[in-house]
């Protein structure tokens, strides 16, 4: 910032707008509070960097020293889909919805930077229990289960078996 003060109070100005009043071009500098008061909305977040740059530059070079027994941020893997945090950082995309839990501590600073809050305030989704919504999911889990058994990946297989049971129970309720 250039050290300018807000035009209506003495706080540092963060928003600079050129307005034309009575044919005169006027530069108006406002602090976030006054900007909100005069209709330029708030809360204000610094959003001048493109999002993909924020994601790819985010945590870069910040290779946490691996604490004994804990995976480093780079190699941390989602147990549900095997996407790594590094993979997310490179592509900007998570592998599955469970990645939000798996990478929760790593995603928090990113969400703080690009979003306005950390909690959803919007529309609520009520999960449906009709056949079209549950059957494809059960089929998918069964397929994954068969594959996990074939690969002798019994830990994953046990988790999938429980998930299938729960979904079938949900369907029959």
């Amino acid at each position, binding site marked *: 910032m250039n050290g300018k003060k807000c035009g209506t109070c003495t706080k540092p100005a963060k928003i600079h707008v050129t307005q*034309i009043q009575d044919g005169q071009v006027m530069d108006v500098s406002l602090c976030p509070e006054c900007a909100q008061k005069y209709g330029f*909305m708030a809360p204000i977040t610094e959003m001048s960097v493109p999002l993909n740059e924020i*994601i790819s530059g985010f945590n870069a070079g910040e290779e946490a020293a691996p604490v004994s027994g804990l995976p480093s941020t780079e190699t941390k893997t989602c147990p549900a889909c095997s996407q790594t945090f590094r993979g997310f950082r490179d592509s900007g995309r998570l592998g599955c*919805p469970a990645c*939000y839990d798996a990478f929760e501590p790593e995603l928090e600073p990113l969400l703080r930077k690009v979003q306005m809050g950390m909690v959803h305030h919007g529309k609520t*989704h009520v*999960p449906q229990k009709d056949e079209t919504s549950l059957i494809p999911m059960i089929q*998918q889990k069964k397929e994954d289960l068969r594959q996990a058994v074939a690969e002798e990946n019994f830990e994953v297989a046990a988790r999938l078996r429980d998930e299938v049971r729960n979904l079938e129970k949900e369907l029959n309720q």
Partner: protein
Amino acid sequence: MIMDDPEFLSCGWLSNPGPNHEIVLSTRVRIARNVKGFPFSHWASTGELARLVSSCSAAVRKTSLLRDSEEIHLEEVNDLDLSFLRERHQISSEMVHSQNQRSVFVSNDQRVAAMVAEEDHLRLQVLQPGLDLKSAWGICNTLDDEISKHLSFAYCERLGYLTACPTNVGTGLRCSVMVHLPALVMTRQIQKMINAVSQLGMTVRGPSGEGSEIKGNLFQISNQVTLGVTEDEIIERLSNLTEQVIEMEAKAISQLMDEAEEDIEDRVFRAYSILTSARKLNSKETLELLSPVRLGIRAGLLKEASLNAINEVFLCSRPAHLQKKAGREMGERERDIFRAQFIRDRFKPSAC
């Protein structure tokens, strides 16, 4: 096929005047949704993607808005049709490059679209002429409610709708308005407007979205923030902001007309003369000429053409649209000749 239907090729929806259509060409609202229990599209196996597409498509077909629409399977359409859908914002650039198992439903009036197996499993989109975020969101919300009756989405109370990219998480809602701001550009206020907008959780881009060049003084303003705010707040904030931008642009026009009417008039009529008499026009030049002509109509200088005609030409003079209109693929030179002919026809006194 629907994409060869003349009705589909026309841009009727855009040429109807919407609210504030003098400055705002169109409004776009889209939401991102993912089906519970599946990896995101780019991480899904071929089998998972096939099951996803079939359950998403089945749910879309049950909605009142898209029940009668045709499902366009992207792997079955040629490059020209892909570019055509891209120019209409009915598919993303990602879908142009990766068509396998991806599809899009477009309503007969072209305002509503559901894209399947995009970056997110489902992207529901509504377009409206002018500044009309509330009604576009209303339609999108209804479509979402109808689809939610048949699909369970990846959703959690804390973070809302879970999306492939955390920049969409929460509401999954992205709203944008396409604005024409020649006076702010000419009075050199545009950079300040962009800076102010970007500090308000909104972003300004070129007319074709992320990373696109700013052409013809067209800008897209959209919300950046999707988490921690309600859908209504996003809509209201973008509407208020756009109204402020409209006011700034309108004031800048009055300023220009007060201080340099002859220069503006000269620029408007020169552009109009070239546009209506040239025999060859490339895409970039067309946008650069349309901009002062549009300004001339808004300022009441040019009575010969209508804003509706201009809005239509903005979209329909793009390369894929022209080739679809001609019914054949054309090289650049042939396209430039065809574009000039199309524009001359569109601006004939009887056609406006």
